[in-house]
Structures are given as structure tokens and as C-alpha cells.
């Protein structure tokens, strides 16, 4: 029971890191980017290929799994996404869903449709016990690392000058520009950061969710549920939602495996009926 809870929390925190970029681009920049999962997949493949083909150690591949998708994200933002900020959400959905399928097809063509496997280093395998409770080492590693990322992200948004300029740009683009803020550059940097976090979570998630070319679609459902239930008014909502979804998913698949992901969708519908404005309502 406790083990399942810990697994659920680890999974939930990973989901949060995966969804955080989407929460920021959707909540702050009001852009619907369904292709967010494609950046997670890129991060996953970077780690898998760096480990399996280049023999790099797992930990060393993680910075790359952040940087490569972040860079691709920055280029995509400037060349593609920036043109769609002023368009309707439907346009954005159609555009980004097309990107998802292109990314999936490209991955399939370049790397094949089979699951990518990675072998975690010995010290991350197996379990250890605290007070008779078995805890997976990798789960504990995920919880700690994701907790650090969550705190860092919150600090960047709330405490740094970059965060303040981003919030200013979101509040009032015209005034922000008239006061010297390079709104385009700030948005590109934010988008890159979100894509990088998605990539990092994709790499961290190989062990839990597997990795194949359908990954962007599979993960899209989860991050959308997290953002829909959590709301985008703050990061607290998506964080709570991710923990709930993660725990429910792990517990559901353990106790009633026949239902599969059914439980998650049921939970989403119930939560949306109870709190249509998200777990944490916007302060307006």
C-alpha cells in the first residue's frame, strides 16, 4: 500500500515536470501546444541513443535530454509557433497535432517502431527498505530530482527578474514592449525551457512509461488531463493534479488492472464536474 503510494507520487511528480512546460505556455502565453509530448519523446530518444550507441552514463545524458529539446523548441518557437500566437485555439490545436504526427512518423522512420530500452546504473536499480517499507531506488531518485525541479521552476517564475519580465509580458504585452521588454525573446526562452523540461521528463520516464514513436500521443493525454484538472492559474494546481493522477493511475493499474486507463478518465470527468475551473480557481 505505502509502496504503491510512493510509486504513485514518483509517477505524479514526473507527470508534473512533463506537464509544467505545457502549463506555462498554455497558462501564461495562452497557447495550446499539443506537440508538447513530442519534445518529451525527443528527450527520451536523446538519452536512449546516448546510452545505447555512445555508451554515455545515464546521469550525463540528462543535461543533453534537456538541452536538445530546448534548442529545438527555441527554433520551432521562432519559426513556427510565434506565427500562431494570435490565431484561434482551434488553429493551434490543428497545427500542433500535425506536428505530433510528423514527429511520430519521423521517429518511426529514423529509429524504428520498437520500444527503446535503457539499463539504469546499478545504484538506481532495486529497492531499499525504510521501516519495513520497500522503496524503489529509482522512484526515490525521481521524487528527489523532480522536487528540486519543481522548487527551481517556482523560484525562477516567482523570484527572478526573468520571471517578473515574463509575468509582465503576459499581463500586458503592449505595455511590456513599451517599457523595453523583448517579449518575443522572453516567450522563446520560456518555450525553450518548457520543451527542455519535457525532454528531461521524457528521459526520466523511459523506465516507467517506455519509449517508442507513439510516446507523444500517449503522453499527450496525461499532460492534458493534468493541465485541465489543475488549471493554469498557477503551478500549484497542475502539481496537485499530477500527484492525484499519478497515484490514481498506479493504484488503479495495480488493484484493477482490467480497467487500464479507464479510471483516469473517470477521475478527470468527476473532477471537472466538481471543479470546472480547475483545482485552484484563477484569482480574478
Amino acid at each position: 500500500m505505502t509502496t504503491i503510494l510512493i510509486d504513485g507520487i514518483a509517477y505524479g511528480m514526473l507527470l508534473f515536470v512533463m506537464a509544467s512546460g505545457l502549463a506555462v505556455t498554455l497558462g501564461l502565453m495562452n497557447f495550446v501546444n499539443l506537440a508538447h509530448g513530442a519534445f518529451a519523446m525527443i528527450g527520451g530518444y536523446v538519452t536512449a541513443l546516448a546510452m545505447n550507441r555512445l555508451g554515455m552514463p545515464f546521469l550525463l545524458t540528462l543535461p543533453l535530454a534537456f538541452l536538445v529539446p530546448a534548442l529545438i523548441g527555441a527554433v520551432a518557437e521562432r519559426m513556427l509557433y510565434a506565427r500562431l500566437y494570435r490565431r484561434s485555439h482551434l488553429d493551434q490545436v490543428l497545427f500542433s497535432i500535425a506536428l505530433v504526427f510528423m514527429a511520430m512518423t519521423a521517429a518511426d522512420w529514423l529509429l524504428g517502431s520498437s520500444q527503446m530500452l535503457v539499463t539504469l546504473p546499478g545504484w538506481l536499480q532495486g529497492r531499499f527498505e525504510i521501516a519495513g517499507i520497500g522503496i524503489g531506488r529509482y522512484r526515490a531518485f525521481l521524487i528527489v530530482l523532480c522536487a528540486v525541479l519543481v522548487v527551481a521552476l517556482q523560484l525562477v517564475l516567482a523570484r527572478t527578474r526573468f520571471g517578473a519580465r515574463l509575468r509582465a509580458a503576459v499581463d500586458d504585452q503592449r505595455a511590456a514592449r513599451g517599457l523595453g521588454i523583448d517579449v518575443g525573446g522572453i516567450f522563446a526562452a520560456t518555450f525553450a525551457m518548457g520543451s527542455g523540461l519535457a525532454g528531461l521528463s521524457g528521459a526520466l520516464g523511459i523506465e516507467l512509461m517506455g519509449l517508442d514513436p507513439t510516446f507523444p500521443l500517449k503522453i499527450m493525454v496525461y499532460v492534458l488531463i493534468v493541465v485541465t484538472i489543475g488549471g493554469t492559474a498557477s503551478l500549484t494546481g497542475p502539481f496537485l493534479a499530477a500527484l492525484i493522477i499519478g497515484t490514481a493511475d498506479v493504484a488503479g493499474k495495480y488493484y484493477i488492472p482490467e480497467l487500464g486507463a479507464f479510471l483516469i478518465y473517470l477521475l478527470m470527468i468527476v473532477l471537472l464536474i466538481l471543479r470546472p475551473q480547475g483545482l485552484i480557481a484563477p484569482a480574478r
Partner: protein
Amino acid sequence: MADILSIEALRAGHGEAVVIPGLSLALAEGEALAVLGRNGVGKTTLLDSIIGVTRRFGGRLALAGRDITRLPPEARAQAGIGWVPQERNIFRSLTVEENLTATARSGPWTLARIYEMFPRLRERRANMGNQLSGGEQQMLAVGRALMLNPRILLLDEPTEGLAPIIVNELLASIRRIIRDEGMATIIVEQHARKILQVTDRAVILDRGEIVHQAASAALLADPAPLESHLGVIAKGAAA
């Protein structure tokens, strides 16, 4: 000495609408100019065109001799234009202090000096931008523009909608910025009499064109042009 700002045959407006058909204006270093005119004649459009957030159809602008015609607003702000928009546009999800520091550039105007000029902002430093009174918002908008350490300040009706006591307080601060600090300033104001006491020169706009210009002192001595172009005895005459 080169003018700090020069505008040549500016043609600007919004969307397809031309509000300013062709306007030329120059401001000397340290000079304070009042822009007067009835509602809707294009005063805000003029200021917004200087910072660059309107649509420009033609003409040229230069800041201290440097052509800024094709610069986007953020580059103009960084080149030295401090903009106080008519709507104030305080960033509501930033604290008062963040509003001051997020866009600040280094120079003689520091947080300490802004707080010294507007002590109320220091008391409110941790409040969010949307929790301020109108007067506080206006002080913050002025402080925020000063924190950019601009070469020229654009003030769009800074006293609009404020209680008389706050109006006087704010005008005293503006006088300090103009007179003691020698800040080149363009100020749009409804209280013509009061602002003429602070400025060197005034232009009166009608339908986007300058219909009269004179030294502020001359207009104070003979307010006939004010009456004929502004239609009413200029507000603030009693004060």
C-alpha cells in the same frame, strides 16, 4: 546641440485610420513640452507613436540624433524613452517593487530615489500591482518609467481621475523631475493652467495637427488661444 527628440512629418494612427496626418515637432535637451487639446484629438496617439505602439504610415523620428523610425517599441524604450501610458498599465501580477525593477536600467534613478520621491510606494512595495489606488498606480507608472533612466519622459495625463490633493502632490513631483533633474519631458494634461507653470512650451492639437504653439509663459499671460482651441476656460483656472 542636437535635439533630444525630433519628429518629421509623422503620419500615424490605428488600423486603417490615420489620426495624425502629418506632424513635425522637436524637443531640445532638458525641455518640457505640454501637449494640450480636446478629447480625441490624437494626444495619446502622438505619445504612443513616439514609443512606437501605434501604426506608422510615414515620417521619421530621431532620438538624440539617432534614427529610431524603424525600431520596435522595446528598442526605443531601451534607447532612452520613458513611457507613462494614459491607462497606466501597471503589471498586475507583479509586486510594486517588481513593477519598478523588472524593466529598470542602470543610471542615476534608483529604487531608493523613487521611494524617496514617492514614499507611499515604499509602504506598498510588497503589494501586487492590482491592489493600488489610482494615485498610487500613477506614481508607480511614473517611477517605473524613471527606473528605465530615460533621456526623455512621456507623460500621458498623469493626473487624470485623481483627487485634487493627489493631483497637486503628483504635479509637485513632476515639477521636481523637470526642473531639478532637467528631464526632457512631453506631458499631455487636462489641467492646462497648472501644467503651463511647469513646462517651457506648449502645443495645442486639433484633429492630429498642431494648431497653435507658444511659450508656456505667453499662454499663461494671454490664455485666449487656450479658450479658442480648448473650447472651455482651461481647467484648473481657479487654482
